[in-house]
């Protein structure tokens, strides 16, 4: 569905993606993991078409993204960003309705008239009672639910998530991940999520891609990717990997270092970026 060919990107002389190629197939939940600066967010922006590749190509059903009009693209691909929406004076309903923009004509009429979709999204995200509140009156978690409802009414068949649960408490983290999982399974979406939370990645994703220095270090199921050597290579972190007692997927525990806690700052620390 989305094919990435020989994708490279750099900021100044710092390379963040180096000849990256991959084929994302439909109705799959992919997780992209890797340390800060590994090129995950850049990759997501390239996949969303808001950033142009410096070399290589991103193909959606074999058509380069650049050749697809922005509005048409927004009917296929939706993006849920980290940190949610800014605190604005717009009401919850107004913001969720903005998700219909790709389907609206110049005068604002919905071309693909699905009035029910906004109500459905508000209901499914539990925002029905908050519809007339303005965003500035909501908490960060509630605002992220509004953002989720907004991408839902966009009715994409590809959903990109950029660390969607950052800054949220575990209740909201679980709610967001399970909402996306349910939606993915019901509508056979292709979901590509950049995740920092490796445990969540192991629980919810079908397939993980580990990025390091703009290259693919490992790809496959959580069991294949989340191994001690890989995690050490990616993050230079000391971890203990156990198996989730009920879900049979790997889960990480931090393993405190016994001595020399200053090693991180003393130059002894392996460079990740």
């Amino acid at each position: 569905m989305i094919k990435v060919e020989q994708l490279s990107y750099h900021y100044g002389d710092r390379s963040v993606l180096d000849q990256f190629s991959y084929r994302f197939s439909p109705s799959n939940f992919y997780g992209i993991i890797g340390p800060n600066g590994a090129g995950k967010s850049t990759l997501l922006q390239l996949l969303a078409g808001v950033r142009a590749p410096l070399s290589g190509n991103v193909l959606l059903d074999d058509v380069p993204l650049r050749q697809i009009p922005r509005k048409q693209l927004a009917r296929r691909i939706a993006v849920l960003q980290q940190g949610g929406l800014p605190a604005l004076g717009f009401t919850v309903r107004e913001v969720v309705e903005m998700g219909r923009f790709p389907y609206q004509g110049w005068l604002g009429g919905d071309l693909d008239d699905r009035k029910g979709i906004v109500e459905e999204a508000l209901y499914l995200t539990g925002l029905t009672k908050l519809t007339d509140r303005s965003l500035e009156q909501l908490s960060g978690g509630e605002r992220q639910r509004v953002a989720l409802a907004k991408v839902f009414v966009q009715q994409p068949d590809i959903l990109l998530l950029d660390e969607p649960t950052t800054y949220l408490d575990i209740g909201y983290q679980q709610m967001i991940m399970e909402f996306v999982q349910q939606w993915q399974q019901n509508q056979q979406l292709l979901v590509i999520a950049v995740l920092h939370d490796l445990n969540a990645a192991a629980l919810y994703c079908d397939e993980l891609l580990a990025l390091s220095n703009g290259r693919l270090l490992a790809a496959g199921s959580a069991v294949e990717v989340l191994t001690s050597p890989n995690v050490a290579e990616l993050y230079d972190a000391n971890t203990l990997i156990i198996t989730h007692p009920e879900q049979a997927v790997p889960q990480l525990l931090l393993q405190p270092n016994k001595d020399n806690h200053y090693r991180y700052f003393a130059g002894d620390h392996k460079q990740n970026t």
Partner: protein
Amino acid sequence: MIYGGAAMLLLFVTIFVALSLGSSGMSMVDVWHILWLSLPFNDGASTMYSAGEIAIVTQIRLSRVLLGALVGASLALAGVGFQGVLRNPLADPYTLGVASGSSVGAAFIILMGYQMLLGLWTIPFVAFVTGMITIIGVIMLARHKGSMQIQTLVLAGVIIQSFLGSFVSLMVSLSDGVVNEILFWIMGSIAMKSWEHVYLLIPFVVVSLPIMMMYSRILNLLALGEREAAYLGVQVERSKFVMLMICTLLTAAAVSVSGVIGFVGLVVPHLLRLMVGPDYRLLVPLSAIGGAIYMIMADTVARLVLSPKDLPLGVVTALIGAPIFTYLLVKRNKKEGGVQSL
């Protein structure tokens, strides 16, 4: 709809009052009788009123009120557009340096005594051209690899503005004899204008308003952030460019006929935000109407308070506007206990 109706009603009341009041000593009945008789299907007012009285009403007062409406509408539209695109509550029609560019052109013409080179239109023409050149310079400064960073744009505008402002000050200081003329032009006025000025502004407002209304949903999406808007299908760079050009044209046109009238473009959109909320689908048309109302009111005060002498219009717009704005802000903060946001 209800807001639109109320605003139109208020506009008509304002025009009615502004036309009725004046320093000539004519009664309200006389004024409206002259206007009635001057309509095309009547015989004209010359049998009942003197030529002077007719000229005051139809040539001076009516054109002045309509010019005020158009200048106010242009500046408020440009203000709401700039605030939307730049996502900066302090943005106004002059933020990107249009007015400074126009002022340099106008001040130069006045200083050199070239006012009549192209007849009546010398100063407006030069002011318009120098204003447009300035904004193009600012946009080129802020462009980088085909995209405009908002912060860079505002910074470039502010820098160009103060750079050109110092030229204006220099020219003011060089021209002992004509100091007042330059300063008065800069302070802004819609006195001593003619129907030609009204005709000049009409196409700018008539073309810009519907385009801006079509872009109002895009301005709403831009409020979520440029990247978020792009994810929702907005062609961000193109939309920003179109809006900036339209707002600049409106500003340059208004400034070229009336000088630099401050505060209207800044405060009218904010007053409306406090009343109707952040939705640009309402703010754009209401700004046009609100700017017109505000400018007519300010100009009526400007010509009546010390009549027959005119106060500088820019002074009045701020003197009336600041207290109203403060009142609404305090009232809103008391009600919601929240912070004002764009």
